[in-house]
């Protein structure tokens, strides 16, 4: 599938969203800021993988997006629970 103008614009916006969340991740002053930025990056990346499945026109990549969403959620929750359990 060749992308037209609107789809290219959507892809550019998604890439810009990734980069802006990355900026917050790099300069976020405290550790919780970085965890929140990583969480947002997870969801944006799930959307981006679904978009890549559209570009490559193959439903196999949707499975990747599904597995990614499930397990990244587990990772973020593990980090959050560990912050909570590890407080002194």
């Amino acid at each position, binding site marked *: 599938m060749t992308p037209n103008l609107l789809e290219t614009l959507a892809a550019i*916006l998604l890439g810009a969203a990734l980069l802006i969340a990355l900026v917050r991740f790099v300069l976020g002053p405290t550790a919780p800021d970085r965890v929140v930025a990583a969480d*947002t990056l997870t*969801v944006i990346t799930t959307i981006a993988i679904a*978009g890549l499945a559209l570009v490559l026109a193959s439903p196999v990549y949707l499975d990747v997006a599904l597995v990614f969403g499930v397990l990244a959620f587990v990772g973020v929750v593990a980090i959050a629970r560990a912050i909570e359990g590890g407080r002194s």
Partner: protein
Amino acid sequence: MRLIADLFLLIGSAFAFLGALGLLRMPDVYNRIQAGTKAVTLGALAFLIGAALLFPQWWAKLLCILGFILFTSPVSSSTIARAIYLSGVKPWQARAPESGPVSAEPTEGRP
């Protein structure tokens, strides 16, 4: 048909962009969680609806991804917020003293 699908895709990525922008501009952790979670979740909703309009034979798997994102994204952000709150990070207050409500703020849970 393709035009409508493209509009949904564009709205979805625009909301994802706004969520990232909110993540960058908000002053403290709680507001960042709010901006990020809400906007990115609606962005995922619109983007996946657009994808389902573009490739109608994929609707089942797209519905799975959508349901999963709608279900887990608030859970993970609430968990992070709870961990941060329990470890004693106080919410940011506005500069002006008359707009800082202190009556409803609970203090007994802080370590």
